[in-house]
């Protein structure tokens, strides 16, 4: 490159800069010209952290991602306890932090963010001695972030830029036309690839473990699925859960409702993953994977009345402790509510049988078709060293206006029982009409209406089911999927109505039902106490009514001398901490302890088993 001959006046060139704006920023008085609308540093600056302690759930994902080990989860007393959260909150060591903002990008609740504060310096105090100087400096920079800087927000992460996989892997589901023709299971289950993708989403925070009634090692078995090690996964599952096939399908998944990913996106499909794990391992393989020998020999015998989930669970755990178990089941097959209360399209026969067969293979004796009456109870009480009552809630509750014994008014449980029997060809027909009304807003009510829809499709070719519930859409207790799927299958759902009177025609047959508007479902103490408005009315035509408004326990088989000693509260037995009823040798488990819920049933089964074991040791 050539250089020009410089003129004599070249040095005076610099005079032109005299009138220009100075480059120097008169810090701190002046802001930068690059972003004039904000003060100081840029709008998404990564400075000091702030953390909404209320919103934070202490999942520890920030600690896991931190590349410098600067974040530690520390338990704090001034943090309010809430469901689905720990009392731990992140503490950040600014002697480590590299201000990368990864913790903000993976924060599951978006409580953590970075502010535009950056000035923080610490002069070593002259009093510091040599030995303590380093510690004093380091300690000064270890800070628990709170909302101090939240007004000056810098780097925050919305869902678009989150590093977490917020979308669930879509579970294959049969379309409504296909599935409403039969009682085949409606979801297809994950394939191996889908399961690994879904397992990958989990951040292994372990909040689910605390929420689960039986405290399953959920992060561990999901990790095993992610590593494509189904055997390891089944092993982890069976440590705490004897009925994974059942739980993998119809569990109330309390784990998913607290899943940390659920705060920003969809929770991990923990239930489907469990189902994938146990489904993909055949029963023959189980014995190679799970320890199937008792860990000790107790040499005692235990009778379990009722072969439902709680009874099976207690049998499983007790057989590991070396007890001889006999289950007395009044129906032809064990399974209880899982078999006779849940329709086959949600829980197929094979899956349930697989779980029960495995428990049988442990040496548990199941006496089916054995109804226990008072005499029998006395006999068992003498014969066995302990009794666990797990009879469940098997009586249907009915509305006070339906005249008992009226034809074409049935309870939910007897109806579902009949459907199951019909499907296994025990009975030839289920009584059904072409216009059915279902009362109730719980999952059982949906089970009824969807079963009816299927039967109607088989029998009459078209569906006419109306379901009426007291609750409004925001407080309806049933799962969201149930509502969506039933609508797809042709069930008409009416919210916020309570039954008043059954309308009969001339011949005494049911013509319809008169409803009134429900103003509120709960009173101020959040107790169930509906208030109605009689002026707003609705008449539904129907020729058959199914009442699915809850179930009640039946304690009539227990002899009076024992029953009088037991304490009851709202239909449930009150137990001590060992799950003993207060009468020697008699324990209880299942719905009659904690109310209707399968996974609670399993938990109470485990606890009753522990109580029995404590009795003999």
């Amino acid at each position, binding site marked *: 490159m050539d250089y020009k001959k410089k003129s004599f006046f070249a040095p005076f060139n610099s005079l032109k800069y005299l009138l220009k704006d100075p*480059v*120097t*920023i008169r*810090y*701190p008085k002046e802001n930068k010209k690059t972003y004039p609308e904000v003060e*100081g*540093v840029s709008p998404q600056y990564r400075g000091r952290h702030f953390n909404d302690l209320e919103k934070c759930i202490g999942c520890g994902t920030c600690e896991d991602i931190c*590349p*410098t*080990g600067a974040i530690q989860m520390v338990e704090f007393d001034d943090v309010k306890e809430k469901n689905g959260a720990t009392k731990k909150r992140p503490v950040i*060591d*600014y*002697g*480590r*932090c*590299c*201000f990368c903002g990864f913790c903000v990008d993976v924060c599951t609740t978006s409580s953590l963010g970075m502010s535009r504060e*950056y*000035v*923080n*310096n*610490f*002069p*070593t*105090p*002259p*009093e510091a*001695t*040599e030995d303590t*100087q*380093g510690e004093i*400096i*380091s300690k*000064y*920079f270890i800070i628990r972030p709170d909302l101090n800087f939240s007004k000056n927000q810098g780097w925050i992460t919305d869902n678009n830029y989150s590093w977490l996989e917020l979308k669930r892997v879509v579970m294959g589901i049969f379309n409504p036309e296909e599935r409403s023709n039969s009682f085949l299971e409606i979801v297809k289950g994950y394939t191996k690839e889908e399961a690994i993708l879904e397992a990958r989403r989990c951040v292994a925070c372990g909040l689910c473990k605390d929420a689960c009634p039986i405290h399953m090692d959920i992060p561990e078995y999901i990790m095993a699925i992610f590593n494509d090690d189904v055997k390891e996964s089944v092993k982890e599952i069976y440590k705490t859960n004897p009925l994974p096939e059942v739980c993998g399908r119809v569990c109330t998944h309390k784990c998913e409702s607290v899943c940390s990913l659920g705060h920003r996106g969809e929770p991990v499909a923990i239930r489907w993953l469990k189902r994938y794990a146990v489904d993909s391992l055949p029963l023959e393989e189980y014995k190679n994977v799970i320890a199937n020998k008792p860990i000790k020999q107790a040499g005692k015998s235990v009778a379990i009345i009722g072969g439902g989930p709680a009874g099976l669970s207690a049998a499983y755990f007790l057989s590991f402790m070396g007890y001889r178990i006999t289950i007395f089941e009044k129906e032809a097959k064990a399974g209880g509510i899982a078999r006779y209360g849940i329709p086959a399209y949600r829980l197929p026969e094979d899956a349930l049988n697989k779980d029960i067969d495995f428990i049988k293979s442990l040496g548990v004796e199941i006496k089916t078709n054995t109804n226990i009456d008072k005499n029998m109870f006395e006999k068992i009480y003498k014969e066995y060293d302990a009794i666990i009552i797990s009879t469940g809630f098997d009586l249907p509750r009915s509305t006070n206006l339906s005249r008992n014994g009226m034809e074409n008014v049935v309870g939910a449980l007897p109806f579902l029982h009949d459907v199951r029997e019909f499907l296994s060809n025990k009975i030839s027909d289920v009584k059904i009409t072409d216009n059915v009304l279902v009362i109730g807003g719980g999952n059982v009510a949906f089970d009824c209406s969807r079963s009816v829809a299927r039967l109607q499709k088989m029998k009459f070719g078209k569906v006419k089911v109306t379901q009426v519930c007291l609750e409004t859409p925001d407080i309806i207790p049933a799962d969201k999927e149930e509502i969506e799927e039933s609508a797809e299958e042709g069930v008409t759902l009416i919210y916020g109505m309570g039954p008043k009177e059954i309308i009969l025609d001339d011949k005494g047959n049911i013509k319809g039902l008169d409803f009134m508007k429900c103003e509120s479902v709960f009173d101020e103490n959040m107790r169930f106490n509906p208030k109605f408005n009689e002026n707003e009315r609705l008449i539904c035509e129907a020729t058959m009514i199914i009442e699915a408004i809850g179930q009640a326990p039946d304690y009539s088989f227990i002899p009076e001398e024992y029953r009088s000693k037991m304490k009851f509260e709202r239909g449930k037995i009150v137990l001590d901490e060992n799950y003993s009823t207060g009468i020697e040798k008699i324990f209880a488990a299942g719905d009659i302890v904690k109310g209707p819920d399968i996974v609670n049933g399993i938990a109470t089964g485990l606890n009753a088993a522990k109580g029995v074991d404590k009795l003999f040791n």
Partner: protein
Amino acid sequence: MELYSTKKLKDEGFEQILNFFRKKSLWMLHYCTGCGAVELPPTMTSRWDMERFGMGPMATPRQADLLLITGYLSLKSLKRVIYTYEQMQNPKWVIALGSCPINGGIYYDSYSVINRLALYIPVDLSIEGCMPRPEAIIEGFIKLMKQIENGEAVGYKKYQENYKWYKQNQDSVLKREFPVLSGEEK
């Protein structure tokens, strides 16, 4: 071991007058040891212009007042830093920039980078950040000036008094004679 409390230093009135003038002309040694070096040129040059605070770069340690540890220090650098620090005349001050000299920073698990500078030379002021922005550095300088004026920045005196302790720490990392990991097992 005598502690330097603020009160005691205040009693020495003479030192106070000296400190007032010292704080207004700090010469910073032009030696860059780590990443932080990259934020020093902006601080020195027109945009942030630290000369308006009476500070300027100085090429030789013997005429400098201020040693900046700009970030991490590897063992090899530490040796040179100690040489340099000992060559500087009293009074002298040390500013540690960034996370690394405070508690190891992102290199907390590195086999080559020291974790806490205060063990080897006395640190008068630590500035958080990775790297600290020029503004943060300037804030730090202003704070140090106040410290100097109040007679609270006494690191160099501590170094003289506890020379043995510092030397022992320095030698323990710089002059090892046995392997660290296998030596520990014995």
